[in-house]
């Protein structure tokens, strides 16, 4: 019998007791694994069970300077090229450096250079996510202030999630703090401490050494990319 003001957790337990079949995943009713986009980085692909989820938002949090955010972005560009996917990078604060990668590595990239206007960048991301010709969409808002991020309405992020679902593409957001409410996967780059000696190290080695922390994962993944 329920109390006058039922505790939600107690209510769930009661429902689970009364209707066990509707609230437990048996082997035959387990949700199918969601497809994934392999990044080529074992630290991510192994931790997530396949890579970045298709049809979902992934947030990569880069809270510290020189934590490897651009390195990871470059790795995603390379992985997309290997997978014959076109990429759109919505660079909200115009921080991308083409000279760091070279023409051959960027032939599949559509670079959208923002002016620091976060709503315009989100609108551009929405347009590109719905296009149907792209295999990966990246949104870089790392230079946004916390105030600007807090002002961005949550429905906009859920709209992006739905756009990614419809197009079944991975949509990756690079942010300075964890704030994307609709992110199905959240990784945080916080533990790497690069030195000037790394500027003379082969980039693939640096990428392989990235060790992002898995902060959120809401889907089971199966590698398909």
């Amino acid at each position, binding site marked *: 019998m329920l109390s006058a003001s039922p505790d939600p957790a107690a209510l769930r337990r009661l429902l689970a007791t009364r209707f066990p079949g509707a609230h437990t995943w048996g082997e035959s009713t387990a949700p199918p694994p969601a497809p994934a986009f392999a990044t080529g980085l074992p630290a991510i692909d192994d931790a997530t069970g396949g890579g970045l989820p298709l049809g979902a938002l992934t947030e990569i949090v880069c809270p510290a300077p*020189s934590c490897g955010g651009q390195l990871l972005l*470059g790795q995603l560009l390379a992985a997309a*090229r290997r997978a*014959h996917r076109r990429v759109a990078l919505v660079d909200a604060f115009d921080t991308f450096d083409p*000279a760091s990668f070279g023409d051959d590595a960027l032939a599949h990239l*559509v670079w*959208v250079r923002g002016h620091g206007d976060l709503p315009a960048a989100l609108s551009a991301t929405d347009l590109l996510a719905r296009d149907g010709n792209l295999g990966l969409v990246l949104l870089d808002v790392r230079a946004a202030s916390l105030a600007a991020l807090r002002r961005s309405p949550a429905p906009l992020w859920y709209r992006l999630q739905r756009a990614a679902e419809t197009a079944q593409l991975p949509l990756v957001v690079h942010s300075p703090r964890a704030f994307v409410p609709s992110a199905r996967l959240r990784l945080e780059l916080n533990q790497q401490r690069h030195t000037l000696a*790394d500027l003379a*190290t082969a980039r693939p080695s640096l990428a392989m050494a990235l060790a992002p922390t898995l902060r959120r994962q809401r889907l089971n993944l199966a590698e398909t990319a």
Partner: protein
Amino acid sequence: MFAVLHLADFPLHAILRTAPDLAAKPVAILASPRARASLLALTAAARAAGVTLGLTAPQALARCAALTLRLPDPAAESEASAALLAAARLLSPTVETTAPGVVTADLRALPADRHDPLLTAALTQLAALALPATAALAPTPLLALYAARQLPIPPFRPSALLPFPARLRRVTDPRAFLAPLPLATAEPPPHLVPILAGWGITTLGQLTALPKADIAQRLGPAGLALWERAAGETTRPLTPAPLPVAFAARLELEEPIETLEPLLFLLRRYLDRLALELRTAGLAAATLTLTLPLEDETEHTRTFRLPEPTASADLLYRTLDAYLGTLRTTTAVTGLRLHLEPTRPLARQPGLFDAALRDPHAFASTLAATAALLGPDRVGTPQLLNTHGPDAFTLTSPAALVPPAPAEILPPLGLPLRRFRPPRPATIELTNHAPGYVWTPDCEGAVSDHRGPWHTNGEWWTHADAWTREEWDVALADGGLYRLFRTPAGWWLEGEYD
């Protein structure tokens, strides 16, 4: 067999095609601007008000005060004629502009079972272009013309579509078809009309019942020709119309347009016709040029290079719609000109591993919409410029095909740079001629390690653009690797190695 596509009340329908709001109103077309000119064509509303063909303008206005009188519009008639001709080319490569609103096609090389489907397709296409034409099929061009003229005029709708039998007629027995028709059908010479009337001849059958030799003897060559027309014995070769070499349209507006919707409507009408012409000519549009003359006597011109050649009116319209939605002019639009540059349709087989676009036109629309949000020079694929200058690149249109990445001989070194654009001014405290402490809007701290300086310069041969800088890579004690550079103007923070 010959087919005729006939657009009755041609001057009226040519105007209604671009001004459909007049169709429901009482409108009449005058033959000329002269005072005693008679009416050529009427809308149904004008007929219902008691106006009839042949009246003069004052007589017509006396019967219907709300009557709108218009003169024939040569530009609209030219546009409608081009549409009729393009639809006729769906039937046969040999087509003739027989008269205003009449096009004849030679179907003798076409199997008989293909006649009806192709004619239906041509009529459907014309209906989609707001041209309610009728069609007839007969052994000679003249018979086909007579048959097409006998069909009832379909009511005008912006995209009318009547059941097939009402708009198509096939003449299988010329004599039986011609016999009951009035004598005026064969267009008798004026001097023979009273003679034949005196003989009591009112139908073509009555005329052809008389011996041909006697008619020739009594009425001369004109009478013989009339008899042959009445008997359906007249045949002639068609004068083929040349294929269009230019795919263009122009319109001078009577009233300037200030809003988008009427302009888009007109553009769609013209694009439908131009796209049909391209398709029937086996061509596609490579570029689309739109020119809008404005009220202040200037012109706004924009050329669109299409991602792939296309003859689809929908894709061409979408290109214009996306652009015009963001266009703002200082004065109203007084006309329009469209020009499509024709080319062979694209026929390519991409490589098995090339990343091609699924829908190039949708992609172009997306990029156009994104550029409208952020600026035309802010979207594209980056390409480095052949210079040692810093941050030197240009944005190009994304390639239609992206080849597989070449094998990497030497991997790149180091962390990529995350740039600050523009570079941030920095205040540097030097220690032993090297940066010891850094103050910038983005970071601050003591320098724990540094590399440099590297001196670079360029454009020294062009004094105005000459540059020189001294670069340093620094690591701050609190974390972060940065690139600094010094110019004669001071210290700057170029970016963060990330």
